[in-house]
């Protein structure tokens, strides 16, 4: 149970080397498959895969046991072998040799273990054998044989992970009678159990030497660093303890220190490690020495001088254990067998010590062997503490990651070229009230660049995750590296105390509403894992980044438009049915690129507008119409032409204001308008058609149909008036707006009543039918002709116009000439009723001729059967009937009251029929007539001028 500290150190070292690269486990299948992509003949991407190549990993076997030493020769290879570990022990004690078995196989194995001892007195100094040496399972791997840990002869190892190890202890007893300087050599042999039988490790030599003297141990412990909240320092408590593990008393060193006078004693001396500071008043110590024990201090690292009180600085702390007569300069018994001693003190390390800095310390104890002449210095085990790893970060305004932020700073964004001035305020880490960086104002549509500084306030190099914790809704923020253009990526790695500038780009959307108190906020967080810090970037005010100017392009023709803002209106006068051009210039007068919608208001009714590019600046449209501009960068100018199409019937307009407006598509509040004027000339025009003519009788009436059209561009108030003409003709004029077109009926509007007109309104572009009724009084001479001018007078919104038609009416009087002749001058009465006698027959011929200048209508030629004569059946005929007319012979038996197209039958009742319509018949033809009809003539039943029909019939003298 000696030198525990050394054993512990050894174990750590063993663990350190136990880690080895993980090999691929046995039976692992390594599968691989190649793939290829290509384009097929149709140009379509295709994929094909290879077969799967499978390789199976075989088992490999191996293990190591350490510490090994080196093998010698001879029996058991002991001769000249060097032990891997050596211990000093006293007679009657038990020695423990710790070993570590490491499985270097890629599968689980079992290792069989055995022990062999060197026998006999020999050149290696081996004088005795350990009693009952056994192999134990050091389950907790602490290098000591603990209660419950059992003896084994083999160790099953299953490979699980790199560094898979098993700890064992070889323990054996030292006989109580073993003389001083006795020695035992022992070896741990091993071999792998099948299938790992080929693996062996038989070189694991160990040695124990037996003492017969004083043997002072010195074990050193160190606590983990603990934060002293009062001082803010981390403190490590060192403990030194030991005992005289030998079987004889340890003696003092004469004049081991000089404090005023030389003092004989045993001294524990422990240097304060570099980077650490002794904690005032922390040292305590005691011992079982025969003399007085004191804690002593040295201001020198080498411990050349010592003091009973704390020195400045304290470079070493010691425990002075005096012998019984410390001033006599003799080496005498000071620590008896089993006497113990302890020394405890604290050191502090500043929080700024880099994390995981090793704080290494080793003490020593100086004494003399029991022979009183041999100086012995026994070092303690080395303890290594590590400074705590403090992970913390601070982020704040540029240059001021911690503490109170103040003042201003400026930065020019390398990407946008925009410069920003920051006002810094608030208190950052570690107090962590609001620290902020403020940009006073920025236009919408721009990116505001902030710079925040991140600091590693911990004591170890660390990667901090920098993120945008929050940003005002509607805005976005992105993080960049210090160059202002490269994305920040996964984090920033900083050494302790190092700063890094993170560039924060806050996008102000183009549609942001300008406001003096927008106060857009982005909270940026630097996260160290266990702690974090935030800072706030604020944009106070937003101005409009969009601005646009539209003006008349008053530099035509020219190569470039003027850059001024001349807004003299363009005044254009045109006629309906034309197209006019307004050359315009749109300029982006904002600070951000933008596109602009083009709109128009105030167009005269019916007119339309379209915008075109004017790429060559000639004031004429180029290309297809547009409704919005392309992207215009700040200050860029675009030449346009607004083309206004005035329809043919456009109403007159005088300097109608037309607003040409351009509006930012990204911010509708950014807009500009130029107002130009358009004058549409008044068009006053009436069309009155056609001229009409007709003939009428006297008296007679005719109605003429005309069409009156308003060809102007405004409504006309119209009056219709006949001009001067012949007496005997009267005129009435109607708008033919009744139920029956072309005929004067109840619905028609009388607009001239024979003496004065009644006006009516006629809308631009519309027509109305007009009926002119002409009446002639009786007694007018044939061929009297009245050519009358009808004037339509229109009053328009501006000016007037008139139109005329001429209606010519001619008087035509009827003049039907009848000439009647008989074929004989003499005839002889029939001798008796019923007799047929040709001599009694007279044939009449009647020629009816229209001798008038105009046609006659409804001509009927009547002729009574003369008294004393009888009509001869079938004798009536008519010829010369006008083409298209029908000349129908009709008969009457009642003196002309009723008529029939057929003659009555020859129905003599008293004798034979004689062919005459006489009084022997039931009825008797009294009259005949010819009716001239023509359904298709104009007028109906026309008997034209010059027409003549010849009628013949025969009678018999009774």
């Amino acid at each position, binding site marked *: 149970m000696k030198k525990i500290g050394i054993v512990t150190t050894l174990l750590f070292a063993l663990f350190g080397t136990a880690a080895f690269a993980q090999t*691929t486990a046995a039976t692992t299948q390594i599968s691989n*498959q190649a793939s*290829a992509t290509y384009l097929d003949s149709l140009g379509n991407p295709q994929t094909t*895969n290879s077969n799967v*190549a499978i390789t199976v990993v075989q088992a*490999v076997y191996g293990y190591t046991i350490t510490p090994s030493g080196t093998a010698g020769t001879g029996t058991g290879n002991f001769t000249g072998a060097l032990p891997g570990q050596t211990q000093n022990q006293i007679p009657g004690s038990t020695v423990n040799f710790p070993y570590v078995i490491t499985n270097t196989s890629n599968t689980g194995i079992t290792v069989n273990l055995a022990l062999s001892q060197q026998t006999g007195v020999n050149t290696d100094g081996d004088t005795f054998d350990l009693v009952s040496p056994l192999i134990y399972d050091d389950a907790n791997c602490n290098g000591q044989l603990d209660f419950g840990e059992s003896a084994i002869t083999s160790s099953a190892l299953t490979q699980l992970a790199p560094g898979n190890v098993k700890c064992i202890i070889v323990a054996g007893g030292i006989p109580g009678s073993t003389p001083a300087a006795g020695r035992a050599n022992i070896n741990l042999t091993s071999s792998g159990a099948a299938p790992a039988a080929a693996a062996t490790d038989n070189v694991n030599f160990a040695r124990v030497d037996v003492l017969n003297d004083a043997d002072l141990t010195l074990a050193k412990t160190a606590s983990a660093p603990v934060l002293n909240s009062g001082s803010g320092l981390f403190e490590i408590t060192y403990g030194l303890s030991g005992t005289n593990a030998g079987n004889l008393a340890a003696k003092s060193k004469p004049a081991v220190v000089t404090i005023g006078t030389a003092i004989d004693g045993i001294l524990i001396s422990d240097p304060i490690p570099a980077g650490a500071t002794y904690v005032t008043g922390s040292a305590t110590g005691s011992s079982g020495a025969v003399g007085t024990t004191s804690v002593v201090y040295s201001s020198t690292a080498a411990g050349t001088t010592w003091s009973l009180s704390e020195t400045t600085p304290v470079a070493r702390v010691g425990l002075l254990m005096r012998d019984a007569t410390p001033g006599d300069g003799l080496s005498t018994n000071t620590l008896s067998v089993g006497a113990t001693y302890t020394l405890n003190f604290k050191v502090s390390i500043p929080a700024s010590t880099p994390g995981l800095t090793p704080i290494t310390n080793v003490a020593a104890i100086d004494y003399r062997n029991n022979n009183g002449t041999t100086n012995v210095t026994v070092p303690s085990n080395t303890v290594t503490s590590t400074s705590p790893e403090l992970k913390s970060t601070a982020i704040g305004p540029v240059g001021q990651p911690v503490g109170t932020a103040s003042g201003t700073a400026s930065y020019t964004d390398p990407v946008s070229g925009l410069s920003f001035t920051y006002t810094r305020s608030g208190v950052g880490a570690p107090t962590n009230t609001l620290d902020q960086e403020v940009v006073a104002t920025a236009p919408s549509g721009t990116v505001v660049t902030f710079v925040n500084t991140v600091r590693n306030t911990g004591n170890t190099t660390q990667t901090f995750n920098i993120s945008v914790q929050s940003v005002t809704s509607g805005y976005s923020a992105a993080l960049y590296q210090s160059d202002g253009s490269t994305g920040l990526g996964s984090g920033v790695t*900083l050494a302790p105390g190092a700063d890094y500038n993170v560039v924060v780009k806050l996008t102000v959307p183009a549609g942001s509403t300008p406001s003096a108190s927008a106060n857009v906020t982005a909270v940026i967080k630097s996260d160290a894992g266990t702690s974090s810090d935030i800072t706030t970037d604020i944009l106070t005010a937003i101005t409009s980044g969009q601005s646009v100017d539209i003006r008349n392009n008053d530099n035509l023709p020219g190569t470039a438009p003027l850059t001024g803002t001349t807004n003299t209106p363009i005044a254009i006068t045109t006629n309906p049915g034309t197209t006019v051009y307004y050359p315009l210039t749109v300029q982006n007068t904002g600070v951000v690129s933008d596109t602009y919608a083009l709109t128009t208001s105030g167009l005269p009714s019916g007119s339309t507008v379209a915008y075109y590019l004017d790429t060559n600046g000639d004031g004429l449209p180029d290309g297809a119409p547009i409704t919005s501009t392309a992207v215009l960068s700040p200050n860029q100018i675009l030449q346009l032409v607004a083309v206004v199409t005035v329809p043919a019937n456009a109403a007159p307009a005088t300097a109608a204001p037309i607003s040409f407006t351009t509006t930012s598509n990204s911010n509708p509040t950014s807009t500009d308008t130029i107002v130009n004027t358009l004058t549409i000339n008044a068009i006053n025009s009436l069309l009155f058609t056609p001229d009409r003519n007709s003939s009428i009788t006297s008296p007679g009436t005719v109605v003429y149909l005309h069409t009156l059209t308003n060809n102007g561009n405004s409504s006309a108030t119209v009056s219709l008036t006949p001009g001067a003409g012949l007496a005997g003709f009267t005129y009435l004029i109607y708008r033919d707006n009744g139920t029956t077109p072309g005929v004067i009926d109840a619905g028609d509007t009388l607009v001239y009543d024979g003496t004065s007109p009644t006006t009516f309104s006629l809308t631009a572009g519309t027509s109305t039918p007009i009926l002119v009724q002409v009446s002639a009084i009786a007694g007018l001479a044939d061929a009297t002709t009245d050519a009358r001018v009808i004037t339509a007078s229109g009053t328009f919104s501006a000016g007037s116009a008139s139109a005329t038609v001429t209606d010519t009416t001619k008087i035509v009087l009827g003049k039907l000439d009848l000439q009647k002749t008989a074929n004989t001058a003499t005839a002889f009465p029939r001798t008796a009723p019923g007799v047929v006698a040709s001599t009694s027959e007279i044939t009449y011929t009647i020629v009816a001729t229209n001798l008038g200048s105009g046609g006659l209508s409804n001509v009927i030629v009547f002729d009574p059967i003369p008294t004393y004569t009888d009509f001869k059946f079938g004798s009536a005929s008519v010829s010369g009937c006008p083409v298209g007319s029908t000349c129908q012979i009709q008969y009457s038996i009642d003196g002309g009251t009723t008529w029939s197209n057929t003659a009555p039958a020859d129905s003599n009742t008293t004798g034979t029929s004689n062919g005459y319509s006489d009084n022997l018949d039931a009825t008797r033809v009294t009259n005949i007539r010819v009716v001239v009809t023509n359904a298709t003539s104009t007028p109906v039943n026309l008997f034209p001028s010059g027409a003549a029909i010849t009628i013949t019939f025969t009678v018999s003298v009774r």
Partner: protein
Amino acid sequence: MNAIKTTLILVLSMIGTLALAQAVKTKPELTLESYRVISEIVNGKTVENFAKADSVKPGDTVEYRVKASNPTQAGLPNFVIDLPIPSSTTYLENSATNAASVAILLASYDRKKSFATPPLKRKIIKDGKTVEETVKPNEYTDLRWIVRGQLKAGQTLEFKARVKVK
């Protein structure tokens, strides 16, 4: 009747054979073979022998051979061959076929997210600064050969690369 039947069957079987042969020739073929590299020193010179890598041991070197053949009647442009490095192996530097006149060799260290000409570089942030470092070949995850021009009709190309079993 018997003669007619026989003829008919013969014709049918010929059609079947023809159809089968045409189907085979519509795609390129890709095969992958793995060999264990056995080095020995003979007369002072290192001689390499190859054995089918059906089974290997940790530390062995395996050579993969990818054969791409084009049995079709037309050249295949944009022919790209990918060969993963199995996770239980590591790529051996400069072992991949790098015949610049035939194909362009690329490698990836991030599971095919990006490919570049080896030696691969990557940017890391170190002490707050972006620095470039060379990626160790044993971190490579994939190899890629881009055949120059096209894989010609009837052409067969072979590409090799070696890995070490972990």
